[in-house]
């Protein structure tokens, strides 16, 4: 099954990825085909497995102590822009323009 332009456009919006060209889409197609092999296994009546340890306890519980934080300076070193000690971001989400309004090879396919 070929992926429709709508689905590809939807994915580009959701994940903010750019498939860039037909090679990128082909790579996605192959990845899906690879994963779909899982459908060949009959899992009727089998509970999905979340962990190989199954129902045995294995999630570590931490004590409620304050052990981290107070590294404002270090964290802000990663910021391209800062104001006092705040990170700066655009005023809202800048959505990907609609398919018709952006330059993408998806339009021609």
């Amino acid at each position, binding site marked *: 099954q070929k992926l429709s332009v709508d689905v590809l456009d939807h994915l580009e919006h959701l994940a903010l990825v750019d498939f860039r060209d037909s090679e990128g889409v082909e790579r996605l197609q192959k990845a899906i085909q690879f994963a779909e092999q899982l459908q060949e296994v009959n899992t009727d009546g089998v509970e999905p497995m979340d962990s190989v340890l199954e129902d045995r306890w294995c999630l570590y519980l931490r004590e*409620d102590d304050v052990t981290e934080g107070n590294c404002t300076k270090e964290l802000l070193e990663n910021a391209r822009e800062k104001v006092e000690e705040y990170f700066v971001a655009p005023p809202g989400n800048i959505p990907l323009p609609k398919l018709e309004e952006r330059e993408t090879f998806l339009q021609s396919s």
Partner: protein
Amino acid sequence: IAPWIPVVGLEIHAQISSNSKLFSGSQVQFAAPPNSLVSFFDASLPGTLPVLNRRCVEAAVMTGLALNCSINKKSLFDRKHYFYADLPAGYQITQQRVPIAVNGSLSYSLCIDNKMSQMVTKTVRIKQIQLEQDSGKSLHDDTRCQTLVDLNRAGVGLMEVVMEPDMCCGEEAAAAVRELQLILQALGSSQAVMAEGQLRVDANVSVHHPGEPYGVRTEVKNINSIRFLAKAVDYEIQRQIEELENGGTILNETRAFDSKLGCTVPMRDKEGKQDYRFMPEPNLPPLILYDTKSLPANMNHQQVINIDWIHERLPDLPSVKREKLVEQYGILPEHSFTLLNEDGLAEFFESVVKQTQMKPKKVIGWILNDLLSYLKQHSLTVKESPVSSFLLADLLNLLEKKEISSTAAKQVLVELWKGEGKTPLEIVKEQKLELLHDQKELEQICQAVIDGQENEVIMMVLG
């Protein structure tokens, strides 16, 4: 015109009262210097991993038990993906597939027709309670066209309580949330102060005709107090009814409540239906809880959470406290509601009762009518009351011993409010409010009054 049935459901986010965050060791605190309570994990730096805070799990179990839920002995964590500047990872860790608690109920009371004397009990079903991360805070700077981001709140533990659409109006929604707030505060699992963002409520509202399927629902956000919750819900119900009666349709959209205008408006940033692409959180195995039966023999205590152990240690819930007050002191149920509704008032009442011979049934009148109305008039909390329980008990004792009349007592109370440090007895002496018990003295006074008003007396005798 056929009647409309409004349907209201609620999604409530309660910040867990804990020292550190849900998945990291940074501190949980309101109002700290920006980005000072942020760990590398909270800032979503590569190579960091979530580590679950035991206290947060206990808080969720306590809350689930208090709300009569079934606690899922195995619950799972998932990622909910969306982009926003205050969500550095690009996803929130939540419990979408199997939450920690399901299928509970909450009972709350309402006054019929605004009369305190007629209370009715209602129940709302609790669909589920899930553990999830809070996001950071965005401060919108419109003048410079930018958003300032503070991640202090990012990663703080939340309990999302989902209430089924069993409510029908703003009053019911407000009463249900108020009761939940009191329960959370009694448990200590959340301080639930709405003004500090520790309790956030989103309302889902729709209307339909009897016998017909539920209508399209809208989500109402940005509700900052219980009072505004009632207003927002009632406004939205009216808006939908008017829209439909005028032949319009309701959009499945998210709206924000504008408290200044008292109305709901569509929210700009929410375009179309969100696809969160839920996936299991690969860095967290299932959360397993135990009870006394299933407790494993040789395991480190610190790594085990026993639901029964927590159940045994639950404090008295508000409904139980009210029953006890009614039983112990012979006050009316509606009195017990008012006592618990005001922080510290029940303790104040009990303290006065201990220090006075006056019967609790009489004391309650002084607490609810005089003390409380004064506090409300001056926007004071019980803790800030210039009249202590000691002073009030002292005054009530004078009244009980018939040394003063109840009118005089009220006068003394007015004087006590000034907080000048005088005792009730001192005020009585100052203002000469002592009751006269001497028969002769009373007769003399009455005679003097009659003698001074001869004409009026004649008029009265003639009828």
